[in-house]
């Protein structure tokens, strides 16, 4: 087959990096959100959920403005961190992290919230620190939620189109992910190539989701 595999690799690389970053910042954030009593919590919750309801082009448009070297943010990042965000892989990662944020935070946050409070309290009365309680009691007991968060973030990043289109453009090897490649091939009437990318995405996403549901059923059965 003479299809260019690069868009597929790029898609999976983007999804993997995004998911990794989301694990590092999304899980602690979800933990904080689950137990905080700050007044602006509803505001934060609304902001986190925005990507669920906004057209991707809205978010993409603002990110494009923010990423441009003429903007204060884009200029700062380019001069001090040395990252060019507009029309680059790094920019796609930042956008994907923002865009998939609710898909990580929601399941993990509700996982934390459904754990009985007495578990945290028990660890506390046994003299355990907050970190020990988090790492050894809370996290291991919300495995299904963590799995859901990781998988949904990964799958959602694979399926991203609008934001990438707005801020990434169509640079082969840099920002041309599979979803864009499909659009591109259709425009050039290469239906075979479009079908190839589409089929791969379809199968991969289906297999991922199926695995999650099977695993979850197994975990639930073990508990029940």
């Amino acid at each position, binding site marked *: 087959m003479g299809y260019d595999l690069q868009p597929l690799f790029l898609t999976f690389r983007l999804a993997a990096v995004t998911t990794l970053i989301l694990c590092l910042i999304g899980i602690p954030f979800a933990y904080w959100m689950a137990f905080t009593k700050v007044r602006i919590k509803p505001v934060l919750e609304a902001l986190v959920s925005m990507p669920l309801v906004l057209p991707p082009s809205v978010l993409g448009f603002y990110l494009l403005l923010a990423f441009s070297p003429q903007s204060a943010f884009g200029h700062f990042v380019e001069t001090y961190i040395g990252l060019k965000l507009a029309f680059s892989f790094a920019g796609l990662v930042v956008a994907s992290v923002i865009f998939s944020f609710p898909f990580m935070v929601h399941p993990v946050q509700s996982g934390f919230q459904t754990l*009985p409070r*007495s*578990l945290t*309290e*028990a*660890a*506390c*009365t*046994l*003299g*355990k*620190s907050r970190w020990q309680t988090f790492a*050894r*009691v809370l996290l*291991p*007991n919300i495995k299904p939620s963590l799995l859901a968060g990781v998988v949904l973030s990964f799958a959602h990043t694979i399926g991203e189109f609008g934001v990438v289109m707005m801020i990434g453009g169509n640079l082969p090897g840099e920002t041309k992910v599979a979803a864009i490649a499909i659009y591109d091939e259709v425009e050039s009437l290469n239906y075979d190539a479009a079908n190839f990318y589409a089929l791969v995405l379809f199968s991969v996403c289906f297999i991922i989701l199926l695995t999650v549901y099977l695993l979850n059923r197994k975990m639930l059965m073990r*508990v029940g």
Partner: protein
Amino acid sequence: MIEVDIQKKLFSAQGEFTLELKMNIEKGEFISLFGQSGAGKTTLLRCLAGLEKPDSGSIKVNGERWFDGKTAFMLPARHRRAGYMFQDYALFPNMTVRGNLEFALQPGAGKQRVAELIELMGLGELQQRKPDTLSGGQKQRVALARALAAEPKLLLLDEPFSALDHAIRVRLQDEVMRMQRHFDLTTVMVSHDISEVYKLSQRVMVIEQGSIAKQGTPAEVFKSGQASGKFSFAGEVLDIETADVVFAVTLLVGNQVVRVIATPDEVKNLKQGDRVMLMSKAFNPVLVSVAS
């Protein structure tokens, strides 16, 4: 010795009231807090554990400050070394029985304490099992063992036996008593079961609406007040029939249907469905053992 003198506003179904308690607990003493639900017993226990904050007052343990309302100081629960047994046991589902006990060990404590507790509490067969696979009584034993594994200075039990059936309850009460003596542990238990309080505690405090209504040894508290030489039961009138010059009233007491004789005076204002108190003098009771 534990010196408690705290105030805290509470909101219950009956409205707002203030928990106002002052008490001293001697080392090695077993104290029960007895009273209706919502009287503030569990709140006191949680204040002792550091899980809840009193509004004002102070808690001192062996001279060490645990809470001081004046300086707004509160020693966090994790530094108090107060073993708390939760009503729902709060065992960590991701760890085995042994894992739960080992997690509770203090830094530097040897694993032989876990082995000793497993031996003492007869948990040998269960040690590799996860909490989800245990029965209520077994979970209870693990929870007690786990609280003890952390070498607590104070043991707090929140209605520890309420979810268990009678036979297991009696066995576990013995176990708690044995452990309490073995480790000479100062213990505070919340309970609304008189027989349990009688059996386990040296001192009872009856808590009503947030303050101590009565205290003393179980014998003093329960015999003087409630053992009055009279039985009384709350019941509901099911039926009233005439039988010659008297009336026969059929009542539902608990889930038993009983039929008693009543005078015309007594039934004058009674009708079906009324709530009544049924009382009898206790000079001629029949006691029959119902050993389980």
